[in-house]
């Protein structure tokens, strides 16, 4: 635990250092978007990597967070910071609700993936169909830059905000690695029956994981709204976000603390590189994501951080 915490502090220092010294908007935007992707990947990792429950519909929590963030300000006139807290809580609550339904009936594996996908789709259709979400047009947040409104004139402000969430997510993940709850969660992932036999309650443990995961994913959604000041049903609940979260976690290495960070970084570097090489071709980014996903699963089932581990093991073996 101490080593993980030290690593998190080091990580924070590096990000802060880059943010403070960077003088181009491109670099700052890159840092912000990579942190944002890291947050989503880490949220997915809590449930998928440590809990072994593969969600294909994490956009459900993302969209919930995003819409609560927007609607709490527009419809309820809530302060943006309060809205943010509410967004996280509601998204975590949706996680609890979906988890209670699905795990109650022992859905796992492909069935769980399908049901999360279906829930995201149901929410998308509802968001399109009812009035108070702005329907298919979406919701627009008025531009009022101030600290109290959670709107910053510089990317640096947003970086601080998302960095806070990323550090919290890393902290929670480190806690999953070392705590009793985390050990139970990993036991359920590896063998649910065996875990139950030694007195672990799989239902309660998985429920905890999906609630945590939903909360952090909701935070990412709320962050999105604050940065882009706009949300519509397909951005919020469309499959794109779900895919981005899970691909980054898997590419980096799920069930690890730093895998999602690595995955998000590599994918964003790759996306930027191809954008420079080929220009803005629609869909190209996702083609690369998909290809990388297939290649990683085919050749590196433990993800990129698994490579590091293999090299380290080989090195130690030789010594």
């Amino acid at each position, binding site marked *: 635990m101490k080593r993980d915490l030290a690593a998190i502090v080091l990580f924070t220092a590096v990000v802060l250092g880059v943010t403070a010294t960077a003088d181009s908007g491109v670099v700052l935007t890159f840092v912000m978007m990579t942190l944002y992707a890291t947050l989503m990947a880490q949220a997915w990792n809590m449930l998928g990597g440590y809990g072994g429950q*593969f969600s*294909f519909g994490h956009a459900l929590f993302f969209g919930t967070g995003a819409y609560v963030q927007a609607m709490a300000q527009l419809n309820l006139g809530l302060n943006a910071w309060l809205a943010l807290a509410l967004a996280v809580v509601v998204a975590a609550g949706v996680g609890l609700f979906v988890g209670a*339904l*699905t795990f*109650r*009936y022992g*859905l796992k*594996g*492909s*069935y769980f*993936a*399908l*049901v999360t*996908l*279906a*829930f995201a*789709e*149901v929410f998308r*259709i*509802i968001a*399109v*169909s009812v009035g108070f979400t702005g329907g298919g047009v979406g919701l627009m947040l008025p531009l009022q830059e101030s600290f109290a409104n959670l709107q910053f004139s510089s990317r640096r402000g947003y970086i601080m905000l998302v960095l806070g969430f990323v550090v919290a997510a890393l902290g929670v993940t480190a806690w999953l690695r070392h705590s009793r709850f985390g050990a139970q969660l990993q036991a359920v992932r590896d063998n649910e029956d065996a875990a139950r036999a030694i007195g672990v309650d799989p239902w309660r443990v998985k429920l905890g994981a999906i609630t945590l995961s939903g909360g952090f994913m909701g935070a990412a959604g709320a962050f999105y709204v604050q940065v882009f000041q706009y949300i519509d049903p397909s951005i919020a609940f469309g*499959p794109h976000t779900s*895919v981005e979260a*899970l691909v980054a976690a*898997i590419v980096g290495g799920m069930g690890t603390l730093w895998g999602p960070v690595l995955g998000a970084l590599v994918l964003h570097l790759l996306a930027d590189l191809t954008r420079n090489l080929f220009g803005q*071709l*629609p*869909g*190209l*980014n*996702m*083609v690369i*994501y*998909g*290809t990388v*996903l*297939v290649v990683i*699963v*085919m050749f590196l*089932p433990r993800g990129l951080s698994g490579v590091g581990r293999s090299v380290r093991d080989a090195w130690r073996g030789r010594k």
Partner: protein
Amino acid sequence: MLEFGILFPSVLNGLTTGAVYALIALGLTLIYGVLHIINFAHGASLMVALYAVYLLKQHLGIDPYLALPIVVPGMFALGYGLQRYIINRASHGRDENILLVTLGISIVLENLALMFFKSDTRSIETPYTLTTVAIGPAMISLPKLVAFAGALVTSALLLWVVTRTDLGRAIRAVAKEKHGAKLMGIDVDHVYAMCFGIGLACLGAAACFLLPAYYVNPQVGNGFVLVAFTIVVLGGMGSFVGALVGGLLIGVVESVGGLFLGESLGQIGIFVIFIAVLLFRPQGLFGAKA
């Protein structure tokens, strides 16, 4: 409220759509029943088939129905290749990997289509696109009627292959007991790839029947894929009869639901059924008890 003159055409329309749904779901259920994997690339594969039909019509002037002998074998080859050379290799014997690989394939296919065709929605014009046939008080468009008949014939053909041929016997043997089948000299990898190929061939047929009355865009598969999953889950994973009945049922639910709730909200009925079945009866209507 339930006036026959309104309800009857709606049900009939639902049945014609449902038959095509059933055809798509049959491919999915065959793949699931034998390989025990959920093919997330099913919707994207349908999209590929639809573009193939579209391109054949636009550039070579081949009528969608006459394109059947081209598109169906083509899709079969695509499916065989995908399973044999990509999915099987990437699986490392783990279901989660297959899930992820088929998801990856669907992302790639969908976005390649986006790159090449942009997100425009395209449709084709045939001499019979707007022809309608009167059945009682209902007017049904001719392409939909052809799709209905075509889907039923294709389903019957598929059932015949699975129940009456040597290949079908091998498929059923592998589905029941993979290791036993291997000991009997059945090439399991080949049978897996055949199943995947046949599953995608169904999509090829569905695409030929669909396009005259439908459209294609890169996301078109998404709409079908959840519907097909719903049908497969509703009918019981791996059950052919279940897929047929489930397909027709869902078609009617969607059509009648749309009548009362409006087009977009009508779709919700499908997902509510889907989630409810997954939660309360995951083995489906016709599936064996899990």
